[in-house]
């Protein structure tokens, strides 16, 4: 279908975008890559009065590394992350995940900031943000603030962003030497939203897992850390018994909603299958 009519303003800077958001209140939406917003307009699921286009703001684009973190501009496209040598070297699981987002033509326009600000419960980046303990910087006419990913995803498409705030950058702490990470998702067809997906990170010292974080997507109304399963894995070697104990906690940790093809029970089962595969990868010698 065709999108309903709306007005359009091209923001000249982040400050300009914030001022426009303030001036137009809840009737305006930020347009970044548009790969989720424009389909929702085409399907007439949303009808904003104004789109504030930030897609040409170079200041929001790019990946750089400081002494302690990798900083990803909100407008950095999935394709940029997929191709970044810096990301591949430091966070191979993130590079792997970028390749699983939709299709090449979508990855050439869709942005990491757009994905996080939308908070689709089946999207990869929000769960990645939980697993890698990322922080987000949001700006408004009032100034800027830093929000932990663990405080950000509140519910179905609901985030801690306040009216008038624009997501500016994503901050990923650089991994300690012992940190390992693995990513996986199960889809019906390549490029589909995942039935279930997960990122698992842990420091692996002498074969023992510590500080394990397991973040799931597609198995609740928001991305979730599987806190009980994580505790069950900590201090273990990621062996079959530890994985079985962790899997037994997933029903309490997650809250899957049946979709057209998969029941709640199927989704829980698949989340357990993923957890087992990813922990096996983490715990493998040299993994």
């Amino acid at each position: 279908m065709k999108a309903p009519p709306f007005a359009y303003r091209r923001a000249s800077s982040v400050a300009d975008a914030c001022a426009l958001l303030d001036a137009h209140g809840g009737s305006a939406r930020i347009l970044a890559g548009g790969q989720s917003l424009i389909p929702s307009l085409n399907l007439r699921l949303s009808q904003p009065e104004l789109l504030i286009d930030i897609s040409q703001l170079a200041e929001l684009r790019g990946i750089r590394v400081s002494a302690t973190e990798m900083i990803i501009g909100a407008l950095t496209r999935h394709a940029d992350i997929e191709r970044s040598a810096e990301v591949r070297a430091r966070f191979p699981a993130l590079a792997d995940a970028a390749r699983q987002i939709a299709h090449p033509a979508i990855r050439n326009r869709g942005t990491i900031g757009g994905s996080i600000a939308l908070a689709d419960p089946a999207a990869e980046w929000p769960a990645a943000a939980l697993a890698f303990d990322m922080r987000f910087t949001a700006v408004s006419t009032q100034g800027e603030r830093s929000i932990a990913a663990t405080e950000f995803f509140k519910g179905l498409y609901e985030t801690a962003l306040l009216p008038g705030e624009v997501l500016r950058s994503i901050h990923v702490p650089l991994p300690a030497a012992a940190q390992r990470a693995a990513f996986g998702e199960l889809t019906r067809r390549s490029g589909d939203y995942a039935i279930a997906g997960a990122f698992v990170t842990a420091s692996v010292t002498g074969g023992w897992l510590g500080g394990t974080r397991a973040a799931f997507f597609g198995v609740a109304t928001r991305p979730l850390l599987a806190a009980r399963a994580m505790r069950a894995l900590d201090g273990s070697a990621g062996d079959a018994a530890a994985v079985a104990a962790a899997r037994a906690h997933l029903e309490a940790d997650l809250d899957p909603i049946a979709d057209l093809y998969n029941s709640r029970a199927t989704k829980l089962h698949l989340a357990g299958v993923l957890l087992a595969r990813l922990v096996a990868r983490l715990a493998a010698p040299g993994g």
Partner: protein
Amino acid sequence: MNQLINVTLKVNGTEVSRPVEPRTHLIDFLRNELALTGSHAGCEHGVCGACTVLVDGEIVRGCLTLACQLDGADVVTVEGLTESGAIADLQTAFHLRNALQCGYCTPGMLVAATAILGQQPPATREEIREHLSGNYCRCTGYEAIVDAIEETAKARAAGRALAQEGA
């Protein structure tokens, strides 16, 4: 609500300027304003790939891009690729392999394929399938489409390898 945005962009090498309604998708701008009807509007929500075109050298969905966002952009459609001869070999391979039936998805397939044809070493069948996962063929003629792209990718890679040896 009947705001018009002036955009100036290059389409198939020619500069065009038009006032557009903000809600006009690139695909409708190309088809309705510029009469470039080679690119097709299929699902109109980013799933089928029939509207695939190049923007600044990269494949995008024409139905998920607004024309008003493309001021200063360089757009190439299947018409531009075919008239310049840039994909003559790919077109021939599609023809010889019978890689189209109804033809609806073909413009999107051809444009999407351009993004992996230059690879060295040439893309494998697996990579071609993955690359085309966002382009639907409802006649389900995928085997022949992958055959045609694989053959063209190999021929191009071999041609370049020969040229390098010669140099």
